[in-house]
């Protein structure tokens, strides 16, 4: 394992432990993704599916989420570490800014990939121990080194999904 990968893994484990210890809620999200642009071309196409699992903690103003995301994407499959800062506009509506850093999964050398996006979460149902809601977002994803293999290495898409928090 390279020095970079070892440091990356150690940071990830530390952040998971810290976030878990402060976490108040656990979010599980499933999204279908609609592609709207690739490289410099506007076009609609199926963008894949995504599963996200994250711990969330809150202070008086913001919610902080930290977790993992896995999705199918133009270049195959990728897994990412995600962090999100969100703000509740109303009781049942919050907006968030999300950053993901991860790897496109390839033998024998995965490729670095990152995403920047914004999300809107609408809480649909409040149960005793869980909250169910819908999510709509806009996200830019870039896998810089995939350009060595394919022509499409950056995409803009719209994740549309459901989440459950407990």
């Amino acid at each position, binding site marked *: 394992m390279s020095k970079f990968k070892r440091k990356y893994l150690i940071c990830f484990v530390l952040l998971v432990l810290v976030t*878990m210890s402060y976490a108040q809620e*656990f979010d*599980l999200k499933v999204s279908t993704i609609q*592609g709207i642009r*690739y490289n410099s071309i506007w*076009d609609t*196409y*199926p963008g*894949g*599916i995504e*599963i996200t*699992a994250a711990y969330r903690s809150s202070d008086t103003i913001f919610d902080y989420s930290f*977790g*993992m995301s*896995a999705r*199918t994407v*133009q*270049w*195959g*499959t990728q*897994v990412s570490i995600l962090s999100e800062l969100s703000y509740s506009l109303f009781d049942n509506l919050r907006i968030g800014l999300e950053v993901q850093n991860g790897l496109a*999964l*390839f*033998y*024998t*050398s*995965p490729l670095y990939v990152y995403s920047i996006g914004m999300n809107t979460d609408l809480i649909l149902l409040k149960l005793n121990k869980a909250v169910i809601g819908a999510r709509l977002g806009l996200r830019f994803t870039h896998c810089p080194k995939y350009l*060595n*293999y*394919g*022509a*499409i290495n950056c*995409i803009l898409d719209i994740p549309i999904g459901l989440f459950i928090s*407990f």
Partner: protein
Amino acid sequence: MRENSKILLLFTILTLLVIACSYLPEGVHIDTALNYQETPEYLSLDLISYDSDITLLFLPGGLVDPHAYLSLMQRIALDSINVVIPKFTSNLAIFELSKYESLLDIYPHTGFLYISGHSLGGIAALSAVAESPNNFEGLILLGTYPSEAFAISDWDHSVLSLYAENDSLSTSAEVLGASAFLPEKEILSNVNSLDTLSAGSAKTFYYLISGGNHAQFGDYGVQRGDGVPSISVEEQHQQIHAAIMKFIRWDRSE
């Protein structure tokens, strides 16, 4: 939810996805005589100077990046066959068995359509033929074989099945052992013998790539569990290319 269950859930998701690693292609240079296009749905190759009426729909092997087949497919495109390589979710054609239908809507083609596939892509191609037998003029299988679920033994078009001597993932015995699920078997010792064969009922032509292996049907390095080839990628691609062109020409001359 208990902490243990949450961690288990995260671990399961991670494990499922980590085993979905795809093989990346070796670098490939596209010949300037070809028009090469990539969209989110497919890759396509066609000769700039010639408007062909034959299209080959090629389905990549499971967990193999579709660009890994460009070096082989551009040889075929340079012989005036339009080539289309669909992209699949997670590079697994087996998850989208009916994608060829929507692809044929968005990829403009006229004339004769052949379908081909490598490994799991070959299973998807067999499924497409079983589902829509009248859509295709012929089937070309690379390092793969059908099961009873995808039997097309009563199909009225011919099949070319290429298998490799050192392929440990689809062995010669497995390929030949599944011949009951394809049209009448005929083993070719030399692809040139197709020139002397006259038209008749649908057949499955089997041709062994001596010294070849599974991964060299594409161009993506070493695959786990595969045998060691005794010929180069270049040599294997030359043999595959020659066999495919002989088969399509024989089929079109019928």
